């Protein structure tokens, strides 16, 4: 490159070099290019293989797998069961999510803060642990509640069998209703009191105001939340397998698992079933998006919305009772029973001083080989997956927000896409892509890393995007014009400012990756078991006490990290509320 001292610049300053061609390969292009390549490899390539696999590749090409996916009676039954599950959980989420949201957002009910926190707790508890807890609570013979009910009412058997369709719907429903709850809660909070007061000034009674003002305003949020609940329930392999499989009720994810696990594995059929599951999810998400777009008129107020709590008089008490029983079943009972079981010599025996032990924790954390390996692998994998996902997410967000590169929107879409894909589907794609040349990493821990990054990169991307969006680009431009290179500006200006947001992104990936089950179950091998696999396998062996100890440990880790996220998000820079300016 030509370096010539410019004329007219006094003070013996360093020389200004002449303009360099714009098309050169600087560090900026290399780093961003690597990120794009990795994203295409981890998300685009497996999805491509899902399509190819459904067409029978690489063995043959044709439509017979797709045809078989729809005609085999077992597959048909799985589809019907899955739809029934979605419908059931959807209805259940409205029935409990909406009253709870009203109670915490707008009523003067006591303990509403506690209810709100417990809903959040039931949401962050991995649903397969809730399922395990319900086996302990409502197992047909030995279930704690069943024994209690038999003793109370003098029954000889039952009365409740969790291993049933209603059992699956209930266990999944008390997890996914949180979507309906949170969306409705937010919408109710966004309705400015003046809208209600205007109606009242015109002579509307309170019930008329609720019916004609509040309900229409939050209806899109309720519908959107319900669809989201239903869609999420489709993908929850854990409870479907843990409760459905013993009851011989098959859903699409468990059917896909069985198809892959059969000998020889029927990959073509698994891909075709995955596409079916994707179709259901995409249809649901498209509907949900449509409803949520109508939501715009609720959030008109934006900042400074004033809401009034309505006095419910004596109605407060039945409302409180209802809310407390919901969170009792969704959070208190399952976590409570897992904790009790983890500390009991035998979970069948009643709790007493002689029945308390730490042996199960010792087994879970120190002696049981699969369990210990699972804990170590889960920590390693979640850390690595979070780091890679944050790097990828940051690159995608940077390209989207700071460049005018062609195709950056497409890239952003690709990075968000896995959010709508069930873990089982993602795993089938990853399996087909990485079982063969050029990257045969199946059977190693790397395939789990690939799956976690692919599954959770959307969380990191959205978080990094929100974080960068708050940072005025002029702060980086000021760095460049002051003489810092692109990389130096990244290191000294963008990264330090985005650090709180990127840390949140890291945790948001770490948390679900740490307890991931639905993709792991298809991809793990001897030696690469994770916590979720250890729990799943120990449950199969009937070691419920050790499982419970491991479950309590998992919930403890997840809960502490979730609290950390909450605390970090509350601090100014990561909250998404205060833009970072000079």
């Amino acid at each position, binding site marked *: 490159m030509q370096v*010539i001292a*410019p*004329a*007219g*610049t006094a*003070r013996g*300053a*360093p020389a*200004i*070099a*002449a*303009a*360099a*061609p*714009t*098309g050169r390969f600087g560090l900026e292009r290399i780093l961003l290019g690597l990120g794009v390549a990795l994203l295409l490899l981890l998300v685009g390539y497996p999805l491509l293989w899902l399509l190819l696999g459904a067409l029978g590749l690489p063995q043959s090409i044709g439509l017979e797998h797709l045809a078989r996916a729809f005609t085999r009676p077992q597959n048909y039954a799985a589809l019907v069961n899955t739809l029934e599950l979605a419908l059931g959980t959807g209805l259940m989420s409205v029935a409990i999510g909406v009253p709870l949201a009203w109670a915490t957002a707008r009523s003067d009910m006591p303990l509403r803060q506690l209810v709100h926190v417990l809903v959040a707790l039931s949401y962050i508890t991995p649903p397969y642990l809730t399922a395990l807890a319900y086996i302990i609570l409502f197992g047909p013979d030995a279930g704690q509640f069943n024994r209690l009910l038999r003793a109370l009412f003098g029954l000889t058997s039952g009365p409740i069998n969790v291993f049933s369709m209603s059992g699956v719907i209930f266990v999944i429903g008390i997890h996914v209703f949180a979507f309906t709850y949170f969306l409705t809660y937010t919408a109710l909070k966004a309705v400015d009191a003046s809208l209600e007061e205007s109606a009242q000034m015109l002579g509307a009674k309170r019930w008329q105001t609720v019916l004609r003002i509040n309900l229409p305003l939050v209806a899109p949020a309720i519908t959107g939340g319900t669809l989201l609940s239903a869609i999420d329930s489709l993908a929850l392999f854990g409870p479907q397998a843990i409760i459905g499989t013993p009851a011989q009720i098959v859903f699409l994810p468990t059917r896909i698992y069985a198809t892959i696990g059969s000998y020889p594995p029927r990959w073509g059929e698994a891909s075709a079933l995955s596409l079916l599951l994707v179709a259901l999810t995409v249809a649901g998400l498209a509907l949900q998006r449509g409803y949520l777009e109508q939501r715009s008129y609720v959030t008109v107020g934006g900042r400074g919305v004033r809401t009034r709590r309505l006095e419910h008089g004596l109605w407060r008490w039945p409302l409180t009772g209802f809310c407390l029983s919901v969170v009792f079943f969704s959070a208190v009972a399952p976590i409570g029973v897992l904790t009790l079981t983890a500390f009991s010599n035998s979970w069948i025996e009643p709790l007493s001083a002689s029945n308390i032990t730490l042996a199960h924790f010792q087994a879970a954390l120190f002696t049981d080989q699969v369990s210990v390996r699972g804990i170590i692998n889960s920590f390693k994998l979640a850390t690595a997956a979070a780091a890679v996902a944050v790097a990828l997410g940051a690159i995608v967000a940077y390209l989207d927000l700071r460049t005018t590169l062609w195709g950056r929107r497409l890239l952003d879409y690709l990075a968000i896409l896995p959010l709508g894909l069930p873990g089982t589907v993602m795993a089938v794609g990853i399996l087909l892509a990485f079982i063969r040349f050029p990257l045969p990493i199946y059977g190693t821990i790397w395939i789990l890393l690939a799956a976690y990054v692919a599954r959770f990169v959307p969380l990191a991307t959205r978080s990094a995007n929100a974080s960068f969006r708050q940072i*005025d680009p*002029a*702060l980086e*431009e*000021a*760095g*460049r*014009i*002051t*003489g*810092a*290179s*692109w990389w*130096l500006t990244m290191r*000294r*200006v963008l990264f*330090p*400012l985005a650090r709180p947001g990127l840390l949140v992104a890291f945790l948001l990936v770490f948390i679900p990756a740490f307890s991931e089950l639905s993709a792991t179950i298809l991809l793990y091998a001897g030696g690469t078991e994770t916590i979720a696999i250890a729990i799943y396998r120990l449950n199969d062996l009937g070691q419920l006490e050790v499982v419970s100890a491991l479950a309590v440990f998992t919930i403890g880790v997840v809960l502490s990290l979730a609290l950390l996220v909450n605390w970090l998000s509350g601090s100014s820079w990561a909250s998404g509320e205060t833009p*970072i*300016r*000079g």
Partner: protein
Amino acid sequence: MDFIEVAGIGKTFGTFQALDAVDLSVEEREFITLLGPSGCGKTTMLRTLAGFLTPDAGTIHVAGQLFSSPTAVLPPERRRMGMVFQNYAVWPHMSVFDNVAFGLQINNVGRSAISERVSRMLAAVGLEGLERRHPSQLSGGQQQRVALARSLVVEPAILLLDEPLSNLDAKLRERMRAELKTLQRQLGITFIYVTHDQAEAMALSDRIIVFNKGRVQQVGTPRQVYERPANLFVADFMGVVNKLPGVLIEHRGAEGHVRIGQQTIAARLGDGLSAADRAIVIAIRPEAIGLGPGAARDRANVLKGRLIDSAFLGNIVDHQVDVDGTLVRVQGDRLQSVEPGAEIELSIPIAECVAMRGDLPEHHEPEQDRS
């Protein structure tokens, strides 16, 4: 060749043409202002000068070196320019000292030299003693001083300023204006200043470049662009102007006779007016009009009208006068009062009546307003 030579620069965003064949030249140590309404291309021009944008056409040379062309762009960090941003862009995670020292640190200036130069610079912008403060503890005006110090401490050849005073309140803005001007004179740095505020532009600049719709409308000293606007857009943008539609009935040299309603006046012919133009507009500044026949000293026109209303504004009185159906604004003396409804005569020096083409120069309609 001048210090900065911009030749034929064009820039398009999607279908919006932000810059269209812009030529301009700036001398060393000049204070030059790019002035225009939002979306006129002034900020795009500044960002192209800084190297943040690659032009679609044209070249930028600084001191004889090629800085920008569609195929080659010298990155911002190697242009030896400074830039002050509208929202200050002071780094919130660094102290005042670290903000200012940044440019010196990355150029490997020695520790003691850094602290000496930073202190000197902070003193120059009136921030002594605030080295350890963080930007969140500073007022808007102080933050803008940090931004100034940060960009000036590395002794740039050129300082770019993008509406640096627009976020400050009116009083502070006027004070900072004066300080900026003094600083520029002291340091002898070329300032390229972007603003939409014509008063600010006139107060600060050696020369003003008026932009509209991506094109340069006029280049000149503040007095030139105010008194001899190249077209009706410039006349309008530089301040309040009366626009009286008329017909050019004859012209001799630099002057002509124009019929306005029932009356005929003599007018100076504006630049760019061709012999074929008949339907024209007479542009007259309200402060150039005197109330009463003897109010003007020079050769003057006299227009008859009727006073509609007057508003007392303190230093002046703003009169609305009906001249054959056209409302004319007159800025009068506060000591002189006229009753509404009175028939009055307005006297206007011929040199202050400028005949111009009535249509604004049309190039391209932007689809949306953006800057």
